[in-house]
């Protein structure tokens, strides 16, 4: 239960519980992102071999993130928390447009539309939580303002269907990848900071 009131006379959600909720949310967001990508891939891009073209980087590739277990374990938790917040912030804008642009697609399937809207909402909710966690660990801070701009809205609105579908494919491919990174980093941070690396 929340510690109420604690020494400072206030009442707060324990840090361990904040992390539990953040991990449940990051797990849910990645689950939705994977499902949305698979559904879109199955429905719109079969035989178009987009994977070979999609490998030229996501808009967040300017944020240097750990690529394996060792790098993830060696990075300072403050830097890793800031990276997570940076990636989350970088997705605020594209997720707003993804939801509205999916709506404009020919017979936009409700299930993809619902997921795009739900991911946008939950991403904002997770960002709020991560700023809370950073504020708790480094009192007062809400993470540095680093994030990476997304400029691909025009490509989601192209007339040429193939190019437009590829833009959607790439955005969902990158969302699946980045949401998996966030989920993985938060699970490592939780074990490190809350369970003394002994999950």
């Amino acid at each position, binding site marked *: *239960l*929340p510690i*109420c*009131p604690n020494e400072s006379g*206030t*009442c*707060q*959600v324990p840090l361990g*519980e*904040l992390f*539990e*909720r953040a991990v*449940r*949310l990051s797990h*849910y967001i990645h*689950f*939705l992102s994977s499902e949305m990508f698979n559904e879109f891939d199955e429905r719109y891009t079969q035989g178009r071999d987009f994977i070979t073209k999609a490998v030229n980087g996501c808009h967040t590739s300017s944020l240097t993130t750990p690529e394996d277990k060792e790098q993830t374990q060696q990075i300072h938790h403050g830097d890793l928390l800031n990276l997570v917040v940076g990636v989350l912030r970088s997705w605020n804008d594209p997720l707003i447009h993804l939801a509205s642009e999916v709506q404009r697609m020919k017979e936009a399937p409700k299930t993809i539309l*619902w997921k795009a809207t739900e991911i946008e909402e*939950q991403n904002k*909710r997770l960002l*709020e*939580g991560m700023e*809370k966690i950073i*504020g708790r660990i480094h009192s007062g801070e809400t993470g540095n303002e680093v994030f990476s701009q997304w400029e691909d809205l025009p490509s989601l609105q192209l007339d040429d269907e193939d190019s437009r579908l590829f833009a959607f494919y790439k955005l969902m491919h990158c969302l699946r990848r980045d949401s998996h990174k966030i989920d993985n980093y938060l699970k490592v941070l939780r074990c490190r900071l809350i369970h003394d690396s002994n999950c």
Partner: protein
Amino acid sequence: NVSPPEKPRIIKCRSPEKETFTCWWKPGGHPTNYTFLYSKEGEEQVHECPDYRSGGPNSCYFDKKHTSFWTVYNITVRATNEVGSSMSDPHYVDVTYIVQPDPPVNISLELKKPINRKKYLVLTWSPPPLADVRSGWLTLEYELQIKPEEGEEWETVFVGQQTQYKLFSLNPGKNYVVQIRCKPDHHGSWSEWSSEHYFQTPPEFRVKEM
């Protein structure tokens, strides 16, 4: 002669789907004005109730925009009449702990006839509509209670996150009544029991050999 209002008391706060929540307070006797105030942990600012109406009398409703999972709400209610006013004790709310879903719905029964084996019954149900859309955000666990219609004692079975249950060990050709309830898998409390569902087991009915 009018005395200052009784000290108000917050009696319940509940979130049905981990997205919004409502709090209710116990009103005093004679005509009094109530002000519902809250602050969020780590913030100095005090806010007033965003919506006094949607939750019914003596209530405050927090829609999605006003509901946060990352903080504890410090809530007080002030009662005022022409003679004076009085303040409730602070009431702390962490939304995750006040989630109480609505009961499960669409309870139905199906008789299964596997080819070379005896028939058996499968009970199925659906999550409460409000929670259903959020299946990943709000994970529910279920419990059912069943008894012979004229029986006294309920048998309770915890079925985890499944939304079906194979009924094996019942007596053939008998009347039974069953109810189901649900709870978040993490904090929060049990819903009310669903409405009672009556059924009769077929004559040649399989008893579980497991």
